[in-house]
């Protein structure tokens, strides 16, 4: 096969894969703008018109927000925003300490941090319920935020980055009389913006996508977050297909609005952790 023919074949394979990959999502978006009784029109027999939003209507979105989806979004933004802000501070501090200071048992402690992120959160969700109920936090926002702040992967990302910063920077700032907190804030943090962005995105998306833990920790469902809210919506309005699609589209849209402009940092941060991890 000539190189040109091979290139064309690869190109075709990539285009077809990308198309098939996003097809279900496209159908969901298009259909969320259809009236409910036209959801499955154009499918039997199948025509490509099934992929178009016709007849066009936004009634599904109006209905979703009338059913309180707006406050569910606000709740989740609050929980994810708090977790991200606190998580950046706490995990960056720990990464800074691991990178700059030697202390007995350091490699053992780092090892435990790494194992902690190899063990997914779901593994401990059920026993965590007992811990959080001992603390009296069941049905409180603290139950969602506090356990998610300390994150082994985020500590590791910061550790990895701060380790590469030449020690001379630290020594020079020390000689000029700067305290360690000042050095972290005015030397290390400005250098580590890409790491802050990738760790922040990770914390935010982790919290945005949380399902099992909020399901267990908020049994009264007074304060609903988005994934659980959506699942409850599915149980309640089983056949309001266009509204289910609308809720799914909104739920996916918000992390994507963050991911698309920042994808470079997210990809770099995660890919780097895998190579060394």
């Amino acid at each position, binding site marked *: 096969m000539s190189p040109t023919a091979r*290139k064309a074949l*690869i*190109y075709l394979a*990539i*285009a077809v894969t*990308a198309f098939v990959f*996003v097809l*279900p999502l496209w*159908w969901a978006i298009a*259909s969320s703008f259809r009236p409910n009784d036209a959801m499955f029109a*154009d*499918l*039997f027999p199948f025509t490509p018109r099934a992929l178009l939003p016709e007849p066009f209507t936004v009634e599904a979105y109006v209905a979703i927000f009338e059913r309180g989806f707006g406050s569910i979004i606000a709740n989740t933004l609050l929980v994810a925003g708090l977790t991200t802000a606190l998580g950046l501070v*706490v*995990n960056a*501090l720990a990464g800074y*300490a*691991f990178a700059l*200071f030697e202390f007995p048992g350091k490699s053992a402690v780092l090892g*435990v*941090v790494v194992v*902690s992120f*190899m*063990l*997914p959160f779901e*593994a*401990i969700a*059920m*026993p*965590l319920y*007992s*811990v959080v109920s001992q603390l009296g936090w069941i049905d409180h926002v603290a139950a969602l935020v*506090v356990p998610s702040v*300390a994150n*082994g992967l985020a500590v590791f990302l910061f550790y990895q980055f701060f380790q590469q910063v030449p020690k001379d920077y630290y020594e020079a700032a020390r000689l000029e*009389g700067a305290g*360690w907190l000042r050095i972290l804030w005015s030397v290390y943090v400005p250098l580590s913006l890409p790491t802050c962005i990738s760790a922040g995105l990770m914390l935010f*998306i982790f919290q*945005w*996508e949380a*399902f*099992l833990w909020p*399901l267990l920790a908020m049994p009264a469902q007074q304060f609903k977050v988005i*994934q659980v809210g*959506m*699942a409850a919506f*599915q149980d309640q309005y089983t056949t309001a*297909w266009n509204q*289910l699609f609308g809720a*799914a589209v909104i*739920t*996916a849209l918000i992390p994507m609005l963050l*991911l698309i402009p920042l*994808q470079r940092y*997210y*990809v770099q941060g*995660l*890919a780097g952790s*895998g*190579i060394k991890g």
Partner: protein
Amino acid sequence: MNRSPVALLVLTLAPALLGLAIFRAYPIGLAFYESLYTTIGGERIFVGLGNYADLFADSGFWKSMRVTLWFNLIINPLQVALALALALMFVQKLPGMALFRLLFLIPIGVSLPVAVIIWRIVLLPEGFLNGALGAIGLGPYRFLTSPDFALYSIIGIATWKGISYWMIFLVGGLQNIPPEINEAARLEGASPWQRLWLVTLPLLKPTLLFVLVADITINFLLFAPVFMLTGGGPRGSTNVLMYEAYKSGFVFGDMGRAMAIVVCLVVMLLIIVAIQFRLLSSAPAREGK
């Protein structure tokens, strides 16, 4: 200003390490502790390893174990292979790749519950997939309500949602391979297929291993699709251990049994992670990296 390094260390490390200790490590210990008790009429009674003995004598537990293992035996190799294929496409340098790369990344923004809702409607007997299959004379199939299909539908949904994420790690691994090595192999007359099998994949092995293990740990604990779609059915065909534990503890109120299942899952995962660290620490020497 001139705090001793000890005070400084405590201040910087304590919040993260305390968080990890209280909300990650302690729950694991607590799970083991609670798995030694049973609750009868609101009273907690110490039963030692009784919950484990009951579990291992229960055919329902073993059926759930079989479902979990079969599910993982299929989904993990499938996801790693597809993620690798995506990653190999992702790193191609062709016109218009920026758009395709973006499309490949899109499912990362889609959470598992969102994927479940979308696919549930796509997979309905009157849904999109049956419509498309009908155009070539197949179906309609009951993808979610037939015991022959339900587990594989869940595998399909989780795979669609998951592979973009794993692709990112493999892209990082691919970009870490010096291009000169592939170039040298090309000049030696190796075909693209040979270069993939003899150069790229051996060099990518540590990353592939990491992705495989991380993927296994996620899929062993898969919960949302079973909870939202099938409730473990039809006829127990999707009743994975994670869902069995949830049902025992939070539906039937038998926390002892639930915690015993969680401990079994955590032990299995820790063994898998330990094997990975063993393999990874011996890998670089073999590959001369």
